[in-house]
């Protein structure tokens, strides 16, 4: 399971609203103790996808390098990623499945009419052939 701090969630929700009607993306930083993950920080990133961004996103590796550096400075780790689905549900699509790594917690936010209405978290199996919902605790849950 993964819990999002109030501060992390505030960054995620604001980023999703600022990017609407395009997809936003970002990185979750925190720690894991006995299988429970706590994301204390969320880093809003650029959507580097070259094309229509209302239904696609791509993380900019330079943002990932900066986030990795920051997490190490804080003795934390990159736990996963987040992105938004404007005017769609919080589900993990086939495109998401094929383009995410195992281990990471991947939070998907549903944004409808500028309101973040739902959020779910998913993990990908080692073969990237299936995803499983991970328990998510967020301020609205």
């Amino acid at each position, binding site marked *: 399971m993964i819990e999002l701090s109030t501060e992390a969630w505030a960054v995620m929700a604001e980023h999703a609203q600022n990017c609407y009607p395009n*997809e936003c*993306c970002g990185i979750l930083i925190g720690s894991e103790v006995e299988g429970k993950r706590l994301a204390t920080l969320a880093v809003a990133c650029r959507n580097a*996808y070259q094309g229509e961004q209302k*239904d*696609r*996103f*791509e*993380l900019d*590796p*330079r943002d*990932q*390098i900066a986030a*990795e550096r920051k997490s*190490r400075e804080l003795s934390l*780790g*990159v*736990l996963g*990623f987040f*992105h938004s*689905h404007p005017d*769609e549900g919080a589900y993990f*699509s086939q*495109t*998401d499945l094929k*383009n*995410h*790594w*195992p*281990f*990471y917690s991947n939070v998907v936010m549903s944004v409808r009419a500028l309101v973040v209405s739902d959020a779910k978290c998913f993990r990908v199996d080692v073969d990237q052939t299936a995803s499983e919902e991970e328990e998510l605790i967020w301020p609205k849950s």
Partner: protein
Amino acid sequence: MAKILIPTPLRQFTGGADTIEASGATVGELLAALTTNHPDIKKNLFNDEGKLRSFVNIYVNDEDIRYLSKEATEVAAGDTVSIIPSIAGGR
């Protein structure tokens, strides 16, 4: 020696280490040293043909090796090599 930064999913193959120091004149030599000492990491970085997987990005300091000399990119002592998961998605 150069530093290789290991992303969290791959640390299970390096005994939990988040950084590995290795010797080599190029990115290819460094990654070869890494996979020799930590063989289980190899299938996560390279395909069956021995080529870097498309969803693995390698940076030397802040530069993407795809825009340098790929695996022949030279590495100097003190350089930092980052293994960056390619993350994307959409509906």
